[in-house]
């Protein structure tokens, strides 16, 4: 069960139990629902961006598996101070690094739900 302990190691379970930046912001610049149609997981990502396009605050809510919730929690810890461009350039390897473990192909979409929703939210904010 070595690999399993890796995937469900303490840090991930901790973020799943008590996710960081979990909740609803009073005045987000943008708020977007993300959904995995294949599995039903839903996440709402809220961002506050300043005029220069830098993230100053972030919150997420939703329901889903430990992998989607923990990766969203870990991601939101890293977003403040990053520019929209920096975030749009992030991809799968970044999320895997945050999780500290390679997620198998059947669960990658869970791990990426937070990042992909954030990126779509930024695109929406830009086209406002």
């Amino acid at each position, binding site marked *: *069960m070595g*690999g*399993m*302990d890796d*995937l*469900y190691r*303490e840090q991930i*379970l901790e973020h799943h139990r008590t996710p960081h930046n979990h909740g609803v912001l009073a005045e987000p610049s943008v708020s977007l629902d993300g959904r995995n149609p*294949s*599995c*039903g*997981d*839903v996440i709402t990502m809220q961002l506050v961006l300043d005029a220069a396009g830098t993230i100053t605050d972030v919150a997420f809510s939703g*329901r*889903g*598996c*430990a*992998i*989607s919730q923990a990766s969203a929690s870990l991601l939101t810890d890293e977003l403040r101070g990053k520019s929209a461009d920096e975030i749009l350039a992030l991809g799968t390897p970044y999320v895997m690094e945050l999780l500290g473990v390679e997620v*198998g192909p*059947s*669960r990658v979409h*869970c791990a990426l739900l937070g990042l992909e929703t954030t990126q779509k939210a930024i695109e929406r904010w830009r086209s406002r």
Partner: protein
Amino acid sequence: MSAWHRADGSLDPRKVRAAYPILATRPGGNPLHYLDSAATAQRPKQVVDAVSNFLFTANANPHRGAYALGTAATDAYEGARARVARFLNVPATELIMLGSATEALNLVARSWGRANIHRGDLIVVTEAEHHANLIPWQQVAREADADIEFIPVDDRTGEILWDRLDSLLKLRPKVVALAHVSNVLGSIAPLAEIASHVHAVGALLSVDGCQAVSNMPVSIPELGADFYAFSAHKMGGLFSGGGLWARADLLAEMAPIETGGDMIREVRLRDATFAEGTQRFEAGTPDASGTVALAAACDFLDELGRAAIHEHETRLLARVLRELPDALPDVRILGTPHAEGRAGLVSFSSDLVHAHDLATILDRRGVAIRAGHHCAMPLHEQLELSATARVSVAPYTDDDDLDALFEGLRDARAIFSR
């Protein structure tokens, strides 16, 4: 019968498993404990052998070749249709062979539905329907400006509240569409009783039989349905293949929704007339190999005995229902708490472990279950669940598979209780 059975006539899964080569494989390095037969059943060697035999000895385009091989192909295809019809106890002239159950359900909605559902008419479905028996009716309703009403579910167990049907029937629907066995709840609908109520108000009953045909005896004339759809790959046939039985008088009036070769009587440059009967709905080269495979799957299921299969599966489901609360103390089981009245599957959720995490952890022991909304998002919405875990059984499922399932559930509980 004895090749697959014990002395007392019950199914012996040890013997049955020998017919399924895939059960001896080790995907991911573990023995395979396949508990996702409701998604697609494994194929017995008999089915694949029948397809090879057809393709190596009788392969030609059915209904066309004016040569001996062409006749052999036509005979194989039409013989296979007759075999499937006998399996369901209906005349072959009323059985349309299609690519899938989804095609069959779309045919009901787009052919019968478009011709008979008009502005202000009412369609009734259950809140638990598979998307394939819901969306086609949504489309018909949108096009015709008709209404859809829903037989509700219990918001805790998801059980369909059949006692609400009569009040909906007072609104005089044109059609009631529902699953014989829900692919999430596992509950068997009391079809004969439902049919008598539906017919009493002049409505038709369209039934999605996907989860029923492989898990229990099904004799369509005893059900009272007007349409009955089913899927080959859930019966041990190939991925391609499915069918629709339609009442003879309805079938005679239905217009084809796909046109092309093999479904015509006469074609001129500006118009065409269509073939009679089932052929009118089977445009293009028919799926002869898929239908031959399905006939072989019917042979095999009948060799095992559908009553014996149902009994075997009911015993396994009873064990799942009994032991689940021990393995996962906060488990929420959908559908009836009893194995009787179920066919083939149990779905459940736990606040402690999300269904996807459960599936991943079980996979480490080679246990394959389904996690998600099982193509029934509205039902999960009603239950305020984003996903459930589904365990489904088959003639080849044995107690070792369930032992591995419960060990895996205990792993999951240990990991998430840390």
